[in-house]
Each structure stands twice: as C-alpha cells, then as structure tokens.
C-alpha cells in the first residue's frame, strides 16, 4: 500500500486490504480442507455447501472492488 507523504490513505483501501488478507487466509484454509477431504466435526452443519471456499472468494472480489474505489480518488476522510 503506497501513499504520498502527508496524504491520507483512503478508507476504501484500508477496508480492501483487511478483506483481502482475511479472504486469502480463509480461502487457503477452505481449499486445504477441500483437498484434504477431511470429515468436518459432527457438530458443524451445512458443510456440504462449502461456504468456507466460496465465501472467502466473494470477500476477495469485494476487496478488489474496494481497491478500485480507493484508487479512483474517493477520499477516506
């Protein structure tokens, strides 16, 4: 994340960065579970929907949109 001295980094960029880091971590964890084919704990429900894979992917897509908003000059403050 680069910024000019004295300039405020857009809030959209901050939000995008946080969502991107979270999305990447969760997607990696979800894909590892998928590849490992490990059985989920019996207490967990609805695991067949694989939300641990597609939800982080959606988060990454939203973070990309927020990065774009941050770059397009929207001010964060």
């Amino acid at each position, binding site marked *: 994340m680069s910024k000019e001295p004295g300039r405020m980094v857009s809030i959209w960029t*901050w*939000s995008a960065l*946080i*969502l991107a880091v979270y999305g990447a971590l*969760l997607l990696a964890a979800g894909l590892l579970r998928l590849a490992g084919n490990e059985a989920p704990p019996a*207490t*967990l429900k609805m695991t067949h929907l694989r939300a641990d894979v597609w939800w982080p992917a959606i988060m990454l897509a939203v973070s990309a949109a927020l990065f774009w908003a941050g770059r397009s000059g929207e001010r964060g*403050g």
Partner: protein
Amino acid sequence: MITLTLLDWAIIALYFVAIIGIGLHLKRHADSSRGFFEGGRGNSSWVAGIAFLSANLGALEILGHAGTTLKYGMYVSHFYWVGAIPAMLFLGLYMMPFYYSSRIHSIPGYLNLRFDERTRILNAISFALMTLLMSGINLYLMALVFQVVLGWDWHVSMWVSAACIAAYITLGGLMSAIFTEIVQFFLIWAGLFLVAILGISEVGGIDALLADTPRNMAHLWATAGNASENSMGVTWAGIVLGLGFVLSFGYWTTDFLVVQRAFSSKDLRSARLTPITASFFKMLLPLIVVGAGLVFYRLQALGEITLLDHPITEKPWNDTAIPVLIARYYPTGLAGLGITALLAGFMAGQAGNVSAFNTVWTYDIYKAVFRKDASDEHLVLVGRITTIVGILLSVVTAYLAMQFDTIMDYIQAIFSWVNAPLFATMLLGMFWKRCTASGAFWGLLLGMGTSFGIYLGLRFGWFGDGVVWFLTQAEHPSDMAMNLWQAAWAWVVCFTATVAISLVTEPKPEEELVGLVKGLTPRADSGAVPLLGRPGFWAVVALAALVALNLWFW
C-alpha cells in the same frame, strides 16, 4: 462454547493490528480541532453514510435484536424499517441544512445558537450521561458475551478492548472512529451475513421459515390491529406513533452520536445524502439480524439448538443466539471472522460513544462553562484527555453494571428519556420561529421528567389499571410497548409545554435566527445538480423500497 484455533486467533489479532495502524496513520491529520472533532469535514456521502449507520450498529444492537426476535419475531423489523427510514430521510431532507449550515460542532451547539445556554447545558449533560451509561453497558455486555461464548476472562477482554479504543481515538479523533466504523461495517457483513444465509438454507428458505413461524410473530402489520394478536403486545398506533414517529425521529434526528458523522461531510449536499445513503443499508440489516433470530427460533422449536445460559441469572440468554449459530455453521477460520465481526461491532459502538462524548464535553461543557477563550490546541488536548477519561468512566460503569444487574433494564428506556422530548424541541426550534428559549428549556425539562415518571410508574406498578390502559392502550403492555408509549407521551408533553410557554414569552429577534429556522434560511442546493445526485430523488427511491418491504412481509 466456541473453541478457537491458531487461524482464528490470527484473524482476531489482525483486526487489532489494523485499527491501531489506522489510528497511527490518522494522528497527523487530527492535530487541529477541525480534524480531531469534525473529521476534517471532507468526507463523501458514502463514507459519512456508512459511518452514520455503523455508529448505530454496535454488536449490542445486532446480538440484542437477534435475541429480541426470539420473543417478538418479525416485529423487530419495525426497528429497521418504519422505526428508522422515515426519520433518516427527514433528517437528510429537512433538518440537515440547519445543522450543517450553522457550522456547529454538536447538537447542544445548535441549541445554544437557536435558544440559549441553559438548553445547551441541559442537553449536553443528559447526552453525556446517556453516552457514558450506554458505553459502559456496551463494554459490560461485550465482556459477558465473550466470557460465555469463548470462555475469555471478563476483566481481560474488557480492559484490552477499552485500551485499544482509547489508543486509536486519542490518536485520530473522530476520523479514527469513522474509519473503524467503516471497517466494522464490512466485517459485520463478511462475518455475520453468512450465518443467516446458511441458517435460512437449512430451514428451507425464507417462505418455509415464515410459514413455520407462529402467526403472531410472522407478520409486520397483519396482526397489529389488536395488541393481543401479536407477540409485542402493541397496536399499529403504538408502532407508528411511539416507534415510527417519536422514538425513531428522536433518535435519528437528534442523537449526536449518529448525526456527528454527517457533520464530517465535505459539503451540504453530501451531508444531506449521508442519512439517505445510510437508509439503504439500514433496510438490509434484518437479513442478518431478524433472519438469524427466526432461524434460531425454528431450530429451537425442532429441538436442534439451545441458547447458552446467562452467567448471572442462569437462565437461557437470548443474546447468545448468533454466537450459537456461528458455532453451528462456521469451521475454523470463519469462526474467527465471526468473532472478529462481533468484536469490531462492540468496539466501533464504543468508539462512537466516546468520540461523541469527547466533542460534547469539550465544546458544550468545558469550553462553554469553564474556558470560553480556549485555544484550538488546548481544545484538542482536552479532547484527547476526555477520550481517556471517558473510556475509564465507561469501565467504571461496566463494573457497576456487573454489580447491579438490573441496570441493563434501563437501556431501552434511556432513549425515551433523553431523545424523545428533544425531538419536539428541535422540531419546534427549526420550523417555528416563534419558539422561545424559555419554552424550549422548560418544555424539554418537563418532557424528560414525564418520560422518567411514566417509566417509574409503569415498571413499579404505581398506576391503576385504568391509568395503564390510558397510557399504553393495553392491559398488560410488554416492556417494548411501555417504552414506545412513554416516548410518545414525553414528546406530547414537551411539544405542548414548549408551545404554551413560547406563546407567553419573548422570542429572539429574527435576524438572530437566520440559518437556524425554516423561512429565515436560504433553500438548500437543487437546480444545477443532476437528478441522480439529488437527495430528494434518493429519498423517494428509499421510501419506495420501504413500502415494498412492508407490503412483502405484511
């Protein structure tokens, strides 16, 4: 109880790193009073709008309303729709021009310009007390939820989060609060919306969910003709007048905690668009809150799921509905995200209270009473010290809440004591130039006293059956119904007293009211702005969406 893994802990730790990083980054932009207290007055309506909504969207509200849904069902949606949207649109269209154009720092500041110092101080003190109480109870509930759900030590989670909030608000002031509120907004959707999606999928979709919900909880208006036919025990008149008009307008148009976000906008048009933008996001929140609550209700009826017990009352605790659903649906990693969303919600709610408190204390109490000639640098220093003192007082309040558990019963009533009568004062002040300073002060005092008196009378059984019926239109009103009606009475008394006293006292000269009262203030922007940039256009769209939602879930 949820067991966290290393990945979950990493996700939670990253959140703390991010918000402290935001505070450090913003410090250099918050060295003037304009930067520290007003967020620089340079935000777009998107930034200010999301912050406006998020300031109200603490985890207390999310967990609390999801839990309340187990009791009142779809009726909780009224708090997000008729109990919020019309007031937010009214603020943007009609009240914001007076607020923004008068260049005030706070709502008490407006009262000082429009009326006098007495009304300002009365509102500043009541707002400061309300904010500290809410802040402390918020902190207390956060620690309690994490103790029950995660087994975290009560004292550690409270002090760590309080220290973190103190750090980033002291560094970056209002802008820090706004930034973290926006981060919180995205985290809440990322961390909690999935709970509702998976839950609704499990019970067979929205139609199946509503079909399996008892009739007295499954509708918005179809059972509102008679108080005995719905779970809230309230008629449509109570909903429309008590919630939709008095409580809602009282909160959304006069509570400085939310209105302060609009003051950070870059121009009047953005300020007017701020609550209107927020209204669209507000309308979507029942997807998470009421959706999850109804899913829990259904699964509970099927014997699939149970609430966790409250550690003090040892009875099932409705506020644990969402954390229990997180444990049901979220694997490692997503569980950490869900907990982070709750943590972010609690902390942003807390930060909102603290940033509003430091502004009102610094400008409307300290500068107004103790140091009228304070310099800009001095005010920023006072603001920073006030932030730390405010956080410490919140912690003290949280410990008091722990000792006196019944203090939490007062949460719902606090808004009706402070905000409901204030709305009558603001309405008359902005739209009636004959309204006088004495009328406003005594009307506000009487309205607040009325609300408090009715609250005590109803809760402690001081009134006979006839009086209870007269006051609430029900024989056995629920707590929520009592709150709605005491707010309505407070508004009526304040309005009537203010008008009556104003008619026999001397108003301010008109030249002193320019920019503060309708009819003496130039009209807001319109002409050259394209249709898609006009607040009026988006307000009509929001209103149409509100009507559609109410018809859908009638």
